């Protein structure tokens, strides 16, 4: 009847070390965000609501803004492609790479690329693909998966990373000092940058009025990777367009603060298009691949607000379930609250398989409270629970509710049941052969039943 939910089981099985890393990283993220945002703005909520309104407006006119962006990009000499599925996006990128005879490239962190599993695809097709973001680089060395939107290795500690470097022969003997690890990675990566023939990035924003791409990083890796290569391909979800460049004043101020507690990330790159005649370096060829991959379906659904997401990871940091279970528990590119909404609907055909994700929440609303674009995540989780029920998706843990509804709409039965519940005080209910009840009572002591006492008191005092 009621089985253990997969995410609860994952949290039981997770190693203490991994869980400690996740809890530590995410709690610090939450605290930093709070302090930076509240120190700088007397009312951060009004800023969040403004950002939400801009995003909603954009999504409402998404077709128009994409067209504007396409025109502006083309005028800058950028080749623009539209990919409706993940397969289209992969093939488009591969064919551009083949036209330019690319066999080695560097890639800066991109959730869109994670979403379509671009790396393994390119490697299969003979293109060496090196992650240049430190966290993603470590993920790649370990054959692991990122578990957080902005901190892909939040689940690892520095000892594990030092062991990886030792195993891979990067930088010599074991050393788990973070600065040493970073320095060693830098030396290793710089050699690779110089031989790469292309750079692949995502984009945080695409300004549809100017056609400029905006990328934020803390390591400068995308900027560095772009300098020596002749070809730049940006893979961008269609929801990343914003109406005007000046809207960045709102989004950039919120993104850094929400993601990492920084007023601004260390690098904010504005990419104007391919190298112009008077620029000393930079790619001569630039392609932007706008990817749908389920986004227009989401836009047509009753969960379209999730497309406001600017991928800051604040909801992951604050979520108590994410903290206990880690991002890997969500069995998809996007974990935590945003993933619990996005994953089941973005990959439409995976809904039945991922319909348990929206249940992994106490609906506490902390995710909505910290969201820089005010996504009502708990409401969306509820709508998806309703969808799962309506579509009769068999998911573990669906407690049958019609007996409850029957009782709660029959006042006299209800009153009798309340009075009868006192019998529980004299029965050893913890031995009742009901597994979830036993689980619950194994950890918790139920208060004594006072069923119907208030009603009696209220009536008698009149």
């Amino acid at each position, binding site marked *: 009847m009621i089985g253990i939910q997969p995410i609860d089981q994952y949290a039981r099985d997770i190693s203490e070390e991994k869980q400690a890393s996740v809890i530590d990283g995410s709690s610090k993220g939450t605290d930093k965000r709070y302090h930076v945002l509240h120190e700088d703005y007397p009312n951060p909520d009004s800023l969040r609501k403004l950002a939400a309104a801009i995003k909603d407006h954009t999504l409402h006119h998404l077709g128009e803004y994409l067209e504007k962006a396409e025109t502006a990009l083309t005028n800058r000499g950028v080749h623009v492609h539209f990919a409706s599925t993940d397969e289209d996006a992969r093939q488009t990128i591969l064919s551009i790479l083949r036209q330019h005879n690319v066999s080695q490239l560097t890639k800066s962190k991109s959730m869109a690329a994670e979403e379509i599993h671009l790396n393994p695809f390119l490697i299969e097709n003979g293109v060496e693909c090196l992650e240049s973001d430190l966290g993603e680089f470590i993920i790649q060395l370990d054959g692991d998966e990122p578990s957080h939107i902005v901190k892909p290795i939040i689940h690892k500690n520095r000892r594990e990373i030092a062991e990886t470097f030792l195993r891979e022969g990067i930088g010599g003997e074991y050393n788990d000092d973070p600065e040493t690890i970073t320095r060693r990675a830098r030396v290793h990566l710089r050699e690779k940058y110089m031989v790469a023939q292309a750079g692949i990035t995502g984009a945080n924003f695409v300004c549809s009025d100017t056609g400029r791409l905006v990328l934020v990083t803390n390591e400068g890796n995308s900027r560095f990777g772009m300098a020596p290569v002749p070809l730049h391909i940006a893979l961008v979800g269609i929801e990343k367009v914003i109406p005007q460049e000046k809207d960045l004043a709102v989004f950039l101020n919120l993104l850094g603060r929400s993601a990492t507690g920084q007023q601004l990330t260390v690098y904010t790159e504005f990419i104007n298009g391919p190298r112009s005649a008077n620029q000393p370096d930079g790619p001569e060829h630039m392609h932007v691949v706008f990817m749908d991959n389920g986004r227009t379906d989401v836009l047509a659904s009753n969960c379209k607000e999730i497309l406001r997401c600017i991928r800051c990871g604040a909801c992951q940091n604050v979520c108590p379930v994410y903290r206990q279970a880690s991002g890997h528990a969500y069995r998809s590119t996007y974990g935590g609250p945003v993933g619990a909404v996005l994953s089941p609907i973005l990959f439409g055909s995976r809904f039945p398989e991922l319909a348990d994700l929206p249940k992994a929440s106490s*609906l506490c609303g902390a995710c909505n409270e910290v969201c820089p674009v005010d996504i009502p995540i708990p409401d969306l989780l509820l709508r998806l629970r309703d969808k799962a029920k309506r579509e009769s998706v068999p998911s573990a843990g*669906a407690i049958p509710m019609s007996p409850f*509804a029957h009782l709660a709409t029959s006042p006299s039965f209800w009153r009798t049941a309340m009075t009868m519940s006192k019998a529980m005080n004299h029965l050893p209910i913890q031995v009742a052969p009901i597994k979830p009840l036993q689980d619950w009572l194994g950890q918790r002591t139920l208060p004594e039943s006072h069923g119907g006492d208030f009603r009696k008191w209220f009536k008698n005092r009149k």
Partner: protein
Amino acid sequence: MATQLQRPTDKRVLLMGTCLCDAFYDEAAKATVEVLEHLGVTVEFPEDQTCCGQPAFNSGDWNASRKVARHCAKVFAGNLPVIVPSGSCAAMNFHGNPLQFEENPDPAIDSLAARTWEVMDFIVNGLGVKKWPGKFDQPTRIAFHRSCHSRGTASGAATLALLESIENAIVTPFGQAEQCCGFGGTFSVTFPHISGRMGSLKLDNILDTHPDILVSGDMSCLMHLTGLAITQGRPVEHCHAIQLLRKTLP
């Protein structure tokens, strides 16, 4: 959370006692009546009330929860304010219900939403009571757990203001206050492990401040936290915030 504008502030109100007070926490419901009466309010208790429907709503069985919500809206029909000693059940009325009826709006549901007040919010923002005339005999450390359903509402600030105004009350902040207690209704049944861990972390943070008493505006959070605390051998004195208001009256 939905913004409620111009909710009625009559001195005659309907009490929505909540199923938890009906089954376990009669003292919280009694205190609600007595505090409201102390403020000159006439309290009526519609006998046919049951539950707000939240268990079915949160489980995703909206067919079931809409039936319960309709029953609830019928029981509390009229123009009077509906006062609830629970941020969670109040939020079900003014936020959850409009959500589950968004495709087929129902005037009775909208009316209930527009008249529902969490009790502390009603006392402060409905009746205009800004200071509570209560007193503890000696300095008393209070841990106030702000329940999740009061996020984005006026209830948290209202409760805090009243508690802090009690003479000799020392409201002691604790760490990671934004974190959930882990109850979440059926969530605690279907995710027993994560729910238990969440509750234990919350208890760690609360007990670190050595409170004399733990209070909240939701008995469900307290049932979960103290249920864990007792099993873990670290029981903590607790009650609904409204019970403290009642207890400290001269």
